[in-house]
């Protein structure tokens, strides 16, 4: 019994310590992000890595998500003779929820894991130590630009996911299942309000923040060995997924 208590205590203390370190890491990265000189070229580079390089996977997943919503929406709504509301269903579902969450998942898997692996490898090969030795703050150079790039790129990717998803649902609903094109778009127009778009935007920005923060932290603090890098990559993806879902719940409960 004592052993169990001891292990539970150790585990809890370890998790609290980890949370504290993550928070201090975040504060450091944010403070350094606003300290001159600004690393504009690095930010642009990371916007390309996070945004442009994730574009194809986000568009593809958005398109198929939309098509699935078209099917599921139609066969659910038809039970209430409300299939003409498919446009509202797809748009609201994508803008408020599926767009931000699924695009965040795609970016976590595609770019977040790569970020953790890159920083973990830099740790293992002493490149981060080399930056410290050159009197260059590695958090300012490696982490802050990524966080800013994530805040910029994620909402743009989410917007594209939403557009492609709405079109995917349109293709299925209107093109395949016979919903009227006019009712699809008019339903969307009448149902979607600014708050729907804004809540999706806010979610996507905060998810971009979570992904870059968690993945950079895990990579930066990876044990300096091959297994350490793979462990950091896995943990960064899992923790990002969990935090995205948890934060999504909190934001949804506040904004609805």
């Amino acid at each position: 019994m004592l052993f169990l208590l001891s292990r539970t205590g150790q585990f809890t203390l370890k998790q609290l310590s980890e949370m504290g370190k993550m928070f201090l890491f975040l504060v450091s990265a944010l403070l350094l992000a606003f300290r001159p000189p600004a690393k504009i070229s690095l930010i642009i580079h990371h916007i390309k890595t996070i945004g442009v390089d994730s574009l194809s996977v986000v568009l593809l997943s958005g398109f198929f998500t939309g098509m699935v919503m078209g099917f599921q929406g139609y066969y659910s709504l038809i039970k209430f003779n409300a299939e003409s509301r498919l446009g509202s269903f797809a748009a609201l579902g994508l803008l408020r929820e599926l767009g931000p969450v699924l695009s965040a998942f795609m970016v976590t898997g595609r770019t977040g894991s790569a970020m953790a692996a890159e920083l973990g490898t830099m740790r293992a090969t002493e490149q981060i130590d080399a930056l410290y030795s050159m009197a260059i703050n590695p958090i300012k150079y490696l982490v802050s630009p990524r966080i800013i790039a994530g805040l910029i790129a994620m909402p743009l990717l989410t917007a594209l996911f939403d557009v492609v998803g709405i079109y995917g649902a349109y293709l299925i609903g209107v093109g395949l299942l016979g919903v009227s094109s006019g009712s699809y778009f008019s339903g969307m127009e009448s149902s979607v309000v600014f708050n729907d778009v804004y809540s999706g935007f806010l979610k996507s920005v905060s998810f971009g923040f979570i992904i870059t923060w968690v993945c950079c932290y895990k990579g930066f603090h990876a044990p300096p060995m091959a297994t350490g890098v793979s462990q950091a990559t896995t943990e960064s993806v899992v923790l990002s997924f969990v935090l995205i879902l948890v934060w999504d719940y909190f934001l949804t409960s506040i904004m609805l």
Partner: protein
Amino acid sequence: MLKGVNLEFTTGKITTIVGTSGCGKTVLLKHLNALLLPDRGQVLVDGTDITKLRQKELYEMRGRFGVLFQAAALLDSMTIFDNVAFPLREKTAMNETQIAKKVEERLEQVGLEGMGYKYPGELSGGMKKRSGLARALVMDPEIVLFDEPTTGLDPILGASIHQLIARTQKTFGFTGVVVSHTIPQVFEISDYVAMMANGMIEEVKTPKEFQSSQNPVVQQFIHGQTEGPIQVL
């Protein structure tokens, strides 16, 4: 790991720290520019305890150091030219023409002229070390730390790296601290040799005195004996 290290480095000279693998040589080296902090004790650079410095002061102090890591620690997303130029671009107000001139100068001094366009992944081990040395020297540091500069290299390449260290030390006049276990080759470039064992410094002598030392720890290490005061796992 370190159980009481008292060691002084003479300005303008090369001190080599030797010892068995895993005895804490690299750990000690990383304390010298505060990459690691001691649980107890001081690290004094010109009388200033660098373990007590605030972050801004510490970064300024680190500007006096150049470091050649064991695997060179080149930033692999950049070419060799950009690696060597990196500290100049980040820490100085030099324009690109001035930077290019200085970088080419350093690359020539380490025998890598015209190779600046290559990426670290395209280089041999020896070329990586030389690139790392060029980067370590580009800011004209007062103190240069070398972490096992010839480990993993063949004897000829190792000798050429040792000669390069000696030549650049004479040219730039820096204080060098070399961590190595490749004896007796490293004695040729050393002004002093410090033997590390069991977490402590056992002896500090000139290379000639070191090789004729009667200290049993030194004798065991020099002759590669498995029996003796140094415990081998």
